[in-house]
């Protein structure tokens, strides 16, 4: 009985820590992105709120919370209200299966540094990232605005297309690790991270994930110069904030997934595992921001060509080659 209660308490503490940590990182990531983009464009970025602009996220949150929550005439009330929550919550839920440190022993009880070690963790990740499409498509549709609708349709088409190469690029990883669990995948990378063995797979995953989280050069669903703001054009206040938050949480989650699947998770010499994990996540996030500062947006047909004619065949070839190597050489 005591053990059961302790388990529940430990679970809730872990949940709270991960949730708060993720939200804090996402919040300050907004600032980090704005600052870095500024430096990439030889300007300072926000530096007025607090020392070095470190309180800017607070100012943003206060602004978003105090803004009027508008709803367009003819909007589908229920869908309009719930779409942002879908985006934000699916992004947050993915992190539940991500291991972020070595198992920890407290008074003879082992505490795994992961919220839930699912044996189908990878499928859980893919399923939730597919669910995220609903938030985008329904939010765009429910707004009763042409720009939102166009953005939502683009979002749905793009995310479904790239889902395919995203899933296919992870098949070799599963072959090498022999498990769907993210904990086992991390453990399989103890000798060497999978990016060394699977550079092609890493490349496909990274590009597809860029499209999946709708970032430049794949930000067609919110292309501001064509569609105002795409699927969240009609949103304001904290509902827009939820879309925004979801986007940045997805960035962190993507960093975490790249770290777990290809960069060896929390493994690393000298420094403690959590530090290594954070370092790898932030490295990926930096590359995302760097990409945003460098590349222009693709055209819609180019986007579809890259996805269907290049990434999907490449991923299939990669699976065949990996399978052959694993079969003949042995894992």
């Amino acid at each position, binding site marked *: 009985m005591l053990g059961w209660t302790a388990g529940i308490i430990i679970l809730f503490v872990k949940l709270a820590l991960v949730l708060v940590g993720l939200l804090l990182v996402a919040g300050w990531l907004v600032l980090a992105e704005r600052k870095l983009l500024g*430096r*990439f464009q*030889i*300007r300072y970025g926000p530096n007025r709120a607090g020392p070095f602009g470190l309180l800017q996220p607070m100012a943003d949150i206060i602004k978003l919370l105090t803004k009027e929550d508008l709803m367009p005439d003819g909007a589908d009330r229920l869908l309009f209200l719930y779409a942002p929550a879908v985006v934000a919550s699916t992004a947050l839920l993915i992190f539940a299966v991500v291991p972020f440190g070595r198992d920890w022993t407290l008074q003879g009880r082992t505490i795994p540094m992961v919220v839930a070690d699912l044996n189908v963790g990878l499928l859980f990740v893919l399923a939730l990232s597919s669910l995220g499409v609903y938030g985008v498509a329904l939010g765009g549709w429910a707004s009763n605005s042409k720009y939102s609708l166009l953005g939502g349709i683009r979002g749905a088409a793009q995310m479904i297309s790239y889902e395919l190469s995203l899933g296919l690029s992870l098949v070799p990883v599963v072959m090498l690790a022999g498990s769907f669990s993210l904990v086992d995948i991390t453990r399989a990378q103890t000798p060497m991270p999978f990016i060394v063995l699977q550079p092609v797979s890493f490349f496909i995953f990274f590009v597809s994930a860029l499209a999946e989280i709708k970032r430049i050069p794949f930000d067609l669903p919110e292309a501001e110069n064509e569609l105002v703001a795409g699927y969240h054009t009609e949103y304001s206040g904290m509902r827009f904030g939820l879309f925004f938050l979801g986007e940045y949480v997805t960035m962190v989650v993507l960093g975490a997934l790249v770290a777990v699947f290809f960069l060896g998770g929390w493994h690393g010499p000298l420094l403690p595992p959590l530090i290594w994990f954070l370092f790898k996540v932030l490295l990926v996030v930096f590359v995302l921001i*760097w*990409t945003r*500062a*460098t*590349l222009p947006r693709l055209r819609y047909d180019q986007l579809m060509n890259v996805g269907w004619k290049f990434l999907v065949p490449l991923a299939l070839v990669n699976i065949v080659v990996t399978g052959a190597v694993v079969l003949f050489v042995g894992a």
Partner: protein
Amino acid sequence: MGDHTNLLKSGLQILKGLGSGFAVTFRHLFRKPITEQYPEFKRPLPARARARIILTRDPDGEERCVACYLCSAVCPVSCISMQAAEREDGRRWAAWFRINFARCIYCGLCEEACPTLAIQLTSDFETCQYDILTLVAEKENLLVDHGGKDKQYNYYRYAGVTMEGTKGSHVNEAQPVNLKSNLS
């Protein structure tokens, strides 16, 4: 076989293009930002920068404004209003003079229209207020105790107008020619 080398070549080209782009942005990350931080650093203004309006005085310390309404008439946004009055010695002045800076577009037409150089634009541009009504300036807010851009100019002296007694004379005015001096 030719197709393969072409594919390889274009692939390398793509990589080179992407790589050089990423290298350029990465180099910029370490450059010093060129932003001028405004309240700490104020860029020197051009000599003829136009901002907040003042009413100047002539060298004798009298108000230059003669309430001719020209500035008010020329103002494209109608932000200047006044009431003309006459002093006991016959000199005209504005009983009240009001500029609505919330409406003013700082075009400088009032300054060009002014025959007495009374109304002038200064380079003091930081006029933001939280309450819009505080932007309505009355005469006591506008009047300064110097001559602005031309310290020496005195309209009444150049116009040759005297307030009382006989007809006065203009500065540098030639004496009237005696037409009959040719007859003698």
